[in-house]
């Protein structure tokens, strides 16, 4: 066979309280290939990659890099061996610029002395810039180096994370669900970057729940089930269906269209709404957006991340002041209401970024269930929280949405990414809202659980729920929506009928094409 593998993992075990995350994992990744890991939520993919990246030590097993056995005590060791990881949840400092974030802790300095020499060093910022610009050009990664990360969308943050890893000289790049919120064009862009990297000898380990993408980019695919590696296949040997069966042992669901349940009653009416980038920055990020969502209707918004979808949602929720326009929920004018009153009026929200906007990571699941719904009698009475009731509610929601967890008292960080997402979907949907704003509702959720969430959405829709759906997954958008809009640079640039719209057509509008006015 080929020479030493870039990465070889043998007999890896990793246990957490109540859970075996990895059991007897064996994985061989050849140099300069894209090797994908697929598997259900909680199968143990992220845990395995954290082991490889030195974030925790395996209970048993060995790691070899380029044929020699290594032991990583920290990510610093892993980086020194050329291993870099972009996490499922980004880890950037919000208030620093892109450049600062990338070079932080790896600044080129003068003089170049060993780490332990306690002498002051000067940060060579122009050198850092030069190298960054070079990297950007080499791999065609587009990002504004001077913007503060706070102002970046999820897609841009990810490019920053990749640059950060490359800047540290990674030869093995681990990407944990990098495409979860990318629209097809961005995915194509990412994939061409990855192919460039592989051509330069970089090895990529890729985790995704989107099997089409996995089949398109991979040289090898390893299936993880129940914490262990089941098999490794070539993309030419399998199709999507077969891969899904290997993963979950059941058939793949489709976001199928069903009979329309749209009623005549308008639940949310957005009229000529505009908003600025911030109090001090009067760039228009939402420009004259108008639409209606009826009870029983799903209105989908397509668009490349960062074209005003997030800001529009913030405006509806009352998190961002509008400069213009009206928003009505039923007959209620929302403009004078605060966030709390709006949510009390019946708005549920599955957010764009679950860690930032929706979870208290250190707190138990049952407290996370309460967040945003603490005024509901389901969780207490009057001024008091009832932990007993909250725990019962949490158990019910966990059952109904099949959240894999050892109990309701574990902290939220102990759940796998997909299970955190399921918990949030459960929280927002069991509250019985009249309008649900669902941003990437199935982000990072495996194919089986995705079907379950879609089913819940359909059922709620049939009962009169109005849904504002924002998704990067065009199949999900077309499959679930009754009406489709495209947003570009803060404006609605196209109205489409999902019955006839194709992903290609959507992609065209998302790239900036304007619909001819009928």
């Amino acid at each position, binding site marked *: 066979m080929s020479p030493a593998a870039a990465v070889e993992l043998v007999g890896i075990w990793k246990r957490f309280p109540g*859970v*075996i995350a990895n059991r007897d994992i064996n994985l061989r990744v050849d140099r300069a290939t894209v090797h994908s890991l697929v598997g259900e939520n909680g199968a143990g993919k992220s845990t395995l990659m954290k082991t490889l990246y030195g974030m925790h030590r395996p209970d048993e097993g060995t790691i070899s890099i380029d044929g020699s056995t290594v032991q990583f005590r920290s990510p610093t060791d892993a980086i020194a061996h050329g291993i870099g990881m972009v996490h499922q949840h980004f880890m950037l400092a919000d208030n620093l610029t892109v450049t600062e974030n990338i070079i932080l802790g790896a600044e080129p300095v003068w003089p170049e002395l060993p780490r332990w020499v306690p002498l002051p060093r000067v940060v060579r910022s122009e050198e850092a810039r030069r190298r960054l610009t070079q990297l950007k050009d080499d791999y065609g990664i587009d990002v504004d180096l001077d913007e503060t990360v706070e102002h970046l969308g999820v897609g841009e943050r990810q490019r920053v994370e990749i640059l950060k890893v490359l800047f540290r000289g990674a030869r093995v790049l681990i990407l944990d669900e990098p495409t979860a919120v990318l629209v097809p064009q961005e995915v194509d862009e990412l994939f061409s970057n990855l192919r460039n990297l592989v051509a330069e000898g970089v090895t990529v380990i890729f985790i995704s729940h989107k099997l089409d993408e996995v089949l398109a980019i991979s040289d090898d695919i390893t299936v993880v089930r129940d914490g262990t590696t089941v098999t490794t296949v070539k993309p030419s040997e399998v199709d999507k269906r077969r891969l899904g069966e290997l993963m979950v042992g059941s058939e793949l669901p489709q976001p199928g269209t069903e009979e329309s349940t749209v009623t005549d009653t308008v639940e949310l009416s957005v009229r000529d709404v505009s908003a600025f980038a911030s109090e001090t920055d009067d760039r228009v990020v939402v420009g004259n957006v108008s639409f209606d969502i009826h009870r029983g209707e799903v209105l989908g918004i397509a668009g490349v991340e960062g074209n005003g979808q997030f800001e529009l949602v913030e405006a509806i929720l009352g998190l961002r002041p509008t400069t213009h326009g009206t928003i009505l929920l039923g007959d209620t004018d929302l403009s004078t209401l*605060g966030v*709390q009153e709006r949510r009390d009026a019946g708005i549920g929200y599955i957010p764009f970024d679950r860690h930032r*906007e929706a979870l208290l*990571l250190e707190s138990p699941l049952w407290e996370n269930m309460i967040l945003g719904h603490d005024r509901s009698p389901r969780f207490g009475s009057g001024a*008091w929280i009832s932990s007993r009731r909250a725990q019962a509610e949490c158990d019910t929601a966990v059952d109904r949405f099949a959240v894999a967890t050892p109990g309701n008292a574990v902290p939220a960080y102990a759940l796998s990414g997909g299970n955190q997402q399921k918990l949030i979907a459960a929280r927002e949907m069991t509250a019985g809202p009249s309008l649900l704003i669902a941003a990437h509702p199935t982000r990072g959720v495996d194919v089986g659980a995705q079907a379950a969430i879609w089913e819940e959405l359909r059922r709620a829709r049939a009962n009169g729920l109005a849904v504002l759906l924002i998704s990067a997954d065009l199949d999900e958008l077309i499959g679930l929506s009754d009406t489709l809009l495209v947003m570009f640079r803060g404006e609605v640039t196209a109205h489409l009928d999902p019955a006839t719209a194709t992903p290609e057509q959507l992609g065209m509008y998302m790239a900036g094409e304007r619909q001819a006015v009928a």
Partner: protein
Amino acid sequence: MKTASITRRNVNWGNIAISLAAPLVALLVATGLTSALMAISGIDPADAFSTLGSRMSERTAWIDATQRAVPLYISAIAVAIGFKMNLFNIGVEGQYRVAMLTVVAVGTSVELPPVLHVTLCIVAAMAAGALWATIPALLKVYRGVSEVISTIMLNYIATGVLAFLFAEVFAIREEGRLNPKSEELPKSAWMPNLVSENLHNISGFIFVAAALGVAYYVLVWKSRFGFRLRASGTNPTAARTAGIDPKRMVVSAMLLSGAVAGLVGMPQVLGDKHAYSSDLQLGLGFSGIAVALLGRNSPVGIIAAAMTFGFLDSAAPFLDLESIPKEIVVIMQGVLVLTVVVVYEIARRVKERRTQERASRSLDAALAVAS
């Protein structure tokens, strides 16, 4: 979900032992460190510790320690309320000083029956503390000024303004009096002592402190407001998205903290001096920060921390008698806070590792049974 999930209700005695041992270890390490510091500065640690040790067997020493612990406890609770949502109220000092003068002004200007009079004074103190804390709260909410900076500045302002008001308005000058004093509060405004043994007292305010401790626990861990407070502290973005108004939370937390801070000086003013005077004990607001840290913001932990500080404070004059500089006490307190922070972090990690190892063992056992 097919990974083995096992519900374990059995108690982890090892971890409980570690939790109990942590404060003792911290105490030992702190003792060692202070001994070293004393030895370096030419003091015999044995002398100092034997003085402290002999105090421990004296009943009056504990009465004094408790008396001193009461305002420290109140002060630490005031600080802890802010800590729970990542607000650093460094201004407890200024807030309680303002409250002391306010109470004297209010208390001397009305005539009321005993219980009512004391109650009025307590309410006035809380109102004054809260009012003084409103300034940094509003500055933070409307101008984005860090509460750390504004409360420190306001401490200085309070000191200056109070000194001026006291000298120009409240102080009664009498011939031959060294410590100027304000008019005395009428007897009806005095808080009686719970314990009084020839000059060693415990103020009735110990009940107020106990009630505060319970209220703090219930409010922070059982009420909706407390949930919102903690949520805002752990993830401000998520809290805001959930409809928790950050401005309102900052203002309420600051006001609450300030109201509690207003009570810090009451054991002195209503229970002991019965007037505003130039020999009031100051600095309790700063000690409160250390006590809150030592007690790790827990209502029970703060009791232990306040007693420790109170005991050391009350022992200071006795060290002086043995010609050991009494400032040693402050050094001990500082070292103790630092060691506790470090030791507790280590204990947390050890417990985490043990939990993991336990999990491995019990899972393996379960698998062995299953297969």
